[in-house]
Structure formats: C-alpha cells, structure tokens
C-alpha cells in the first residue's frame, strides 16, 4: 500500500484551470468515494478550496494510481486539451504526501502564509470523506496526525502572528485602541473600494454604526445602504467627527481633506476621547499634523503597509521552525504507505 497526493494550487495553476477541478463543499464525500471505486485504490479524500484541489489516495502502487486518477479527472472534467492541463498538477508520494498535507493544514502552503481558515476546510473535507466511508486505517491516522501537527505548529510558533493585510492591520490597531468594537462608531470619507473593505472588516468585528461621506452623495447613500449605515453630505462630515471613534479616509482629493483645525474644533465636544484616523489615500487625505494632537492616533497607508510587511517577514522566519515540528511529528507516526 502506498500513499499519494495529486493536486493543483494557486502557485501551479491559474484560476481558469483551478475552477475546472473545484468540488463543491457538499459534494466532497461523493467525490472521495468515487476515488475508492478506481482499481487498486483503497482510501481517498478530496480537498477543495478556492486556492487548491487535492486528492489523497491509498493505493496498491502509487504510480499506477496516479495514471488512473489523471485519466479519471480528464474524463470527469471532459478536458479537450489534456496535455496542457496535466502539467499544472503536482504529484507527491509516500512520506512527501504526508508532509505536504501537514504543511497545508499548518497554513504553510497557503497564499497568505499561516492563515487559519485552511485548517477548518481540510477538516471538513476529511469529515465528508469519513462520513462517506472513503477512509480507513491509513488516511484516518494521517489526517488525525496532520490536525494535531497543525495545532502544534500554531501554538508553538508565531506563524499566525500579526496581520498581513492593510485592512487587518487597521482593524487590529482599532481593537488595541478601543477593545471590543461594539461600542465604536466609524466614519468613512470617500466611498472607494479600500475604505469599503476596511470598514467591512471593522463591522465584521462588531463596529456599531457607520457614517459614509462622499463628494457624490448618491455614492455615499449607496455604500451606506450596503453597510447598514448613514450617508452624510460631504460638507457636513465635521459635525459627525464629534461622535465617531474611527475615521477611514480614502478620497481621490489632490490635497488634505482633514486639517488639524477640523479636529481641534471637535475635541471639546468629544471630551478628548481617543480618535483613530486611518488614511489609505494617496495623496494623503489627513494632514500629518493631526497626528500631533494628544488623543489622536494617525496611521497612513505607508505605515500600515510597513506593518503588514513586517508581519509577513516575521511569518517567513517561522517556516523553518514549523518544518522542524512537522518532520518530528511525522517521524513519530510510522505510517504504513509512507
């Protein structure tokens, strides 16, 4: 018996190829049982996310099973240009396949290094295969161990530490200033895509209400409606400043929109409460001197990018330690087929 893995991911295949092999989350069990119907295959699990589709098999001989699986996929997806698609697949056998699964579960093979969502996605795929009766001794042991390794990697290293996107850095900072965001109000200046994404992240973490101000009032109303907030006319945003805690600015203005005097005017009414400005516009929307006001925390796009870059670099440095844990844990497993 030999363990093998055939797969493609965001690094080996463009989206138009990946989508051909994607399997819906409700069909993972059926897809797994289909694998075991192939000659010489005893167990199978199909993992499918937006960035990868992978097939884990236990078969009599890995090389024969790989050929069978490729033919099965070509037939199933009705590909006309078989030779152009097959090179997008990676093939891993025995211990390499086990090691690859542990790397996937630990987030080391993800587009965003160290991300945690993949853990749940693999668990769901395995449970679907288990529920369909497509797994047995080898894959059950392998997946259980991979989940244990994934947990160990996350608790014993700093692979998931820090935020690696500008939006998440901004949200983490907001939580460092205000704690739970359920008591925080947010104002968006400029209804651009970046402000929308950042504001959505804040709302998803509990931010109470959103005010949207934009030169085009119709666009402000549209975004406010989408986010369940209120639109504010662009010449009235100063009055809203008195009540909000977080301001996200991303207008296309060629000069600073928020001047120090605007904030100074609102301080007394705000009773000098902390105020967090996120300036993601280029050129900047908020005059840098606003950051000199005692209770104001001002972060521009460069600072946020730098913080995200630093977090990414810190995660990169953790890879070696993660690989060491994976190797040590797999050595203990002594799994047949590897």
């Amino acid at each position, binding site marked *: 018996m030999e363990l093998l893995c055939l797969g493609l991911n965001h690094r080996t295949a463009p989206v138009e190829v990946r989508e051909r092999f994607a399997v819906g989350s409700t069909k993972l069990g059926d897809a797994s049982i289909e694998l075991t119907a192939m000659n010489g295959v005893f167990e199978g699990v199909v993992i499918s996310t937006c960035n990868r589709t992978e097939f884990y098999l236990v078969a009599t001989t890995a090389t024969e099973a790989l050929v069978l699986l490729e033919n099965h996929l070509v037939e199933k997806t009705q590909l006309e240009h078989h030779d152009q698609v097959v090179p997008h697949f990676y093939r891993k056998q025995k211990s390499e396949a086990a090691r690859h699964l542990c790397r996937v579960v630990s987030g080391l093979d993800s587009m965003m290094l160290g991300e945690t969502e993949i853990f749940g996605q693999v668990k769901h795929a395995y449970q679907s295969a288990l529920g369909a009766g497509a797994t047995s001794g080898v894959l059950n042991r392998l997946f259980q161990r991979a989940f244990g390794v994934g947990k160990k990697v996350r608790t014993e290293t*700093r692979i998931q530490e820090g935020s690696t996107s500008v939006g998440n850095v901004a949200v983490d*900072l907001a*939580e*460092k*200033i*205000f*704690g739970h965001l359920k*008591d925080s109000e947010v104002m968006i200046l400029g209804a651009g895509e970046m402000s929308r994404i950042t504001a959505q992240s804040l709302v998803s973490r509990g931010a109470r209400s959103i005010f949207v101000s934009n030169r085009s009032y119709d666009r402000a109303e549209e975004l406010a409606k989408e986010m369940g907030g209120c639109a504010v006319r662009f010449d009235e945003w100063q009055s809203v400043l008195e009540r909000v805690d977080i301001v996200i600015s991303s207008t296309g203005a060629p000069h600073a929109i928020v001047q120090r005097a605007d904030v100074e005017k609102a301080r*007394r009414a*705000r*009773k*000098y*409460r*902390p105020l967090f400005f996120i300036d993601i516009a280029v050129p900047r929307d908020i005059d840098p001197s606003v*950051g000199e006001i*005692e*209770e104001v*925390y001002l*972060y521009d796009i460069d*600072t946020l990018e730098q*913080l995200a870059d*630093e977090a990414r670099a810190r995660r990169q440095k953790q890879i070696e330690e993660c690989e060491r844990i994976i190797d040590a844990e797999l050595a203990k497993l002594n799994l047949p087929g590897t």
Partner: protein
Amino acid sequence: MDHWILILGTVLAAIGSVWGMVSVHRGTRSLWTIVWMLAVFVCQLVFLGFRGKEHGTCPLTDHGEILVFLSWALTLFYLLVGSTYRISLLGVFTAPVVTVFQSIALIPGVLDENPQKFTNGSFWHEIHSSTAVLAYGGFALAAVAAVMFLVLDKQLKEHHLKSGLFRNLPPVRELLVSMERLLQIAGTLLTLGIIAGFLMPHDHKALGHLLAAVAVWSGYGFLLGLKLVRGLTGRKLSLSVVIMFILSLGVFAFV
C-alpha cells in the same frame, strides 16, 4: 516570626515581578502572576494578623506597617479588579511596586521591633486607618494603570508595535475606564476615611494629617470632576494620576 513572613512575601513578589517581565518579553501572558500575587497576599495577611494581635488594634502604627498595609491594599485591588476588567497584566506592574514597598518596610528601623499593645484604640480611628489605606491601594493601582496607558500611548503614537509588551497591554479605552473606576472606588473609600478621621478623637498633630488628607481628596475630586464635566485626554489624566499619587504619599509624613 512576622519579619520572616514579610521577607517571604517580598521574595515571592520579587519572583512574580521577574516572572511577569520575562513573560511579557516573550510576548506571552502568564497566569502564574496571579498565583504569585495570591501567595504574596496570604503572606501580607499573616503578617498584618500577627501585628494586629500584638497591637490589639489595626496594624497601622508605624511607617513599616503602613507600607505593608498599602501593599496589601494594592494586591487586594489587583486580585479583585485585575480579573474583573481583564487586565491581568496589571499584576506584572503591581508586583514590582509591592516588592519596593515591602523592601522599604524591611529596612531596619522602619518597622517597630517591639510592637506595643494599645488599650485606648477607638472604633473611628480603626475605620479611618483601614479605609484610608485601602483608598491608597486603589489610587496606587490607578497610578499603575496610568503608567501602562502612558507606555501604550507612546508606542501607538510612534508606531512601535513589535514588542511583547505592546501585544500584552490591554486596549487604551479599557485602561482609561479602569483608571476612572479605580479613582471612583478609592475616592469613595477616602471620603469614608476622612469622615471617620474627623469623628475619632484627634489632637493637634492629627489635625495636620487630616487636613493633608482633605487636600488629597480635593485633588482627586477635582481631577475626577474635570474628567466627568469637561473631559481630559488620556495622557493628561494618566500623568495627573501618577503625580497625584506620588504627592499624596506625603500625607503619611504626618502619621
């Protein structure tokens, strides 16, 4: 015997300080700080129990006992308030203060070597002493929270966000709310202490102490009133709380 208990409590607090600092440096939060502080609290209770039995009254008769009582109040507030407001890191900052206070109390001559038995203790005197020192424990903890705020504020302002300390410090708003609540609790206790102080039999020397306590009460009252009515930036509030606490310790010069 009582000295040995105090030495043990001080050593435990010192270990708690080092342990806490190492955890923070590593970027983790150690629950052991709470365990150490609980052990320190027990030592303080035993020490104060011994001294109280020897005096036959509340053990606040010399500067050494006042410092230990203050450390006890500080530890009590930390154990009660720290967990309530989820600011367990406060222990990391509290333990060094307790270590310093108790170390000073252990300097020869600060604690009375032969505690005397008091037979003329008054009820109001004991209420005054205990509530006032408890109030000081609250003010001390507010000052600790203020220092934490000042550290966090500086890091956020200067965009220095990589340290283990930054990761473990509670949010700005949580620190400000905790500080305000601690000032309110301590202020209420000090009010009770001052009222009891005027009700107890007092001589000319005690009047100076009481007037100093009233000055402290007015200072904190003004600060809280200002925060409530006009509002204050976190930095100004924190600096005022730290300065007020240092100045207010002068009250004990009159004891």
